[in-house]
């Protein structure tokens, strides 16, 4: 027998209580990790990848609800440091009925969009068809599968945001260029010229999406575009893709405080559960602790045994909860399970590490009081305790 074996035997003595405690810590830590992952996803300052870091969005300075003249594209194109630019407008049409329209449609420039979103992969032939046919559209592979669409199918988006019905032919399906790319395969791309025709050549655009030559060029590109349209009737605001996304998140309010409060409640509840379990476990063993002390275990060693047991319990919960939820979410087809509502839910290692760190802290904190009580109780007092 070794000290770790002894700790393990002690931890396993009341299996039902152990299982229930580990389960409650696991479930709480899984929820904590999920919230941390969501918070990371929503508030992360860094872009998803290098490609994303090169993308910029130009929108109306006042708000996203205001549109820009499409002719701006020519000025943007000429800006030094811009490699490609595409008109990019949210169509917001309705497919069949609102309940079935759980995907976004965007109006783009067919010949440029794939230069900007390089993490999207489309068959070259399908790409050519999209560029040739005005009424062609490209859809995400998952969306294609979910709706049972086939290439060549005609789909109609009834007027939603814009006062036009858009009837398009599916000419291609895009997928992610590599399995690690966080690409939403749940969108539809429609051609801008076709949409503009339907609108009666109004020449309106929601946003312009730009791919910069390099990261170094970005500050200059932003400054040059916005100053080019300063003092016009439609001034622009150009920002990085990530800043643009964070703008959406900020519309939801103070997400950090909201998620942080829920996490704090979870951690506090877990602390109560584990502290109560450890207190019960050690109180039941007051006599045994006294025996250990009589046999020559000193206060530090007794504290070490209790701490190790508490850590084993909480870290077990941490591994099952934090690591388990990552493995689970990565192995499940969330898209199918959520009926297309959740495309993917990446759990970053930072969230898992934070979960394990919380588990570690729980282990330490929940053992302090019972360990201290055990150390302070004399051998004689401990031996008088009833079994």
């Amino acid at each position, binding site marked *: 027998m070794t000290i770790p074996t002894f700790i393990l*035997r002690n931890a396993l*003595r009341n299996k039902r209580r152990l299982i229930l405690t580990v389960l409650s810590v696991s479930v709480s830590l899984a929820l904590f990790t999920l919230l941390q992952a969501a918070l990371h996803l929503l508030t992360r300052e860094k872009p998803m990848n290098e490609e994303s870091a090169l993308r910029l969005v130009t929108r109306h300075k006042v708000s996203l609800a205001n549109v820009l003249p499409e002719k701006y594209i020519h000025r943007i194109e000429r800006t030094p440091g811009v490699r490609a630019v595409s008109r990019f407008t949210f169509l917001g049409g309705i497919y069949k009925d609102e309940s079935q329209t759980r995907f976004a449609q965007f109006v783009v420039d067919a010949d440029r969009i794939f230069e900007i979103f390089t993490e999207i992969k489309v068959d070259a032939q399908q790409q050519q068809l999209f560029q040739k046919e005005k009424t062609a559209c490209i859809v995400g592979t998952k969306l294609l599968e979910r709706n049972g669409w086939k290439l060549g199918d005609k789909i109609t988006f009834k007027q939603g945001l814009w006062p036009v019905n858009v009837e398009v032919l599916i000419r291609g399906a895009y997928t992610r260029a590599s399995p690690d790319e966080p690409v939403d395969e749940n969108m539809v791309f429609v051609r801008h010229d076709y949409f503009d025709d339907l609108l009666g050549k109004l020449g309106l655009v929601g946003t312009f999406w730009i791919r910069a030559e390099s990261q170094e060029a970005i500050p200059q590109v932003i400054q040059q575009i916005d100053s080019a349209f300063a003092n016009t009737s439609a001034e622009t605001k150009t920002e990085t893709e990530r800043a643009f996304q964070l703008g959406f998140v900020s519309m939801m309010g103070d997400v950090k405080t909201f998620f942080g409060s829920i996490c704090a409640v979870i951690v506090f509840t877990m602390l109560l559960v584990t502290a109560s379990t450890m207190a019960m476990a050690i109180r039941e063993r007051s*006599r045994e602790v006294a025996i250990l002390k009589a046999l020559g275990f000193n206060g530090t060693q007794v504290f070490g045994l209790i701490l190790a047991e508490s850590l084993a319990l909480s870290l077990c919960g941490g591994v099952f909860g934090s690591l388990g939820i990552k493995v689970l979410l990565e192995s499940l087809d969330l898209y199918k399970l959520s009926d297309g509502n959740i495309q993917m839910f990446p759990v970053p290692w930072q969230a898992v590490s934070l979960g394990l760190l919380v588990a570690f802290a729980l282990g330490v904190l929940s053992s302090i009081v019972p360990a201290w009580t055990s150390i302070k109780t004399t051998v004689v007092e401990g031996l008088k305790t009833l079994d």
Partner: protein
Amino acid sequence: MPKPIVQIRELSKIYTRADNVVKALDNISLDLIEGEFVALMGPSGSGKSTLLHIIAGIDRPTRGRCIVQGTDVGELDQTQLADWRKDHVGFVFQSFNLIPVLTAFENVELPLLLTSLSSRERRAHAEAALKLVGLGDRTHHLPKEMSGGQEQRVAIARALVTDPTLIVADEPTGNLDAHSAADVLTLLQTLNREWNKTIIIVTHDPKAASYAQRTVHLEKGELLNGDGQHPSPHISNLKSQTS
């Protein structure tokens, strides 16, 4: 003259509970000789267990000194005391006090985890101790799978596995039937006679005390001599030894 292994000098233990002051031990002086088998006898509340606890280093005197093999145990702090107990004292309790989740072998091996012995050496020591108490074939049994007598023999094996200076036993037969009690006492007697172990037992049973070489009587915290007189002849010699 044989050298005393335990020297107790003018030892008192006073408990204060609210307004009550209880003198558990009152100015006791006593010597125990190396290799002696001593029984501390007396009625409930006489202070025999308190005296045993102080000798074993799990309680502290209020006044006086308790010197075991040259170490004044009252002078040691908690960590030093724990360390001292590990090397010098083997405990046998009335209710056996084995760790229920450990097998007989593991219970005996437990004190050895605090030593620098290798796993193989620990195994050898624990097996030898269990064989010595006649339980070589019960090594993998849990306490709940053994009789009271067997549990107490495992406790004795645990007490002697570190080869301590003293083996202290607090009412070791209190929870046993007559047959098992006789077995346990015979075992303690054998350890004393054949292995020269210094053994101190606390008992209120004269039959149990009869296994010891010497009986020390206590009453109301004071020592009585062998036939109930006070002070005991043994103690009267102490003054000349200490002066």
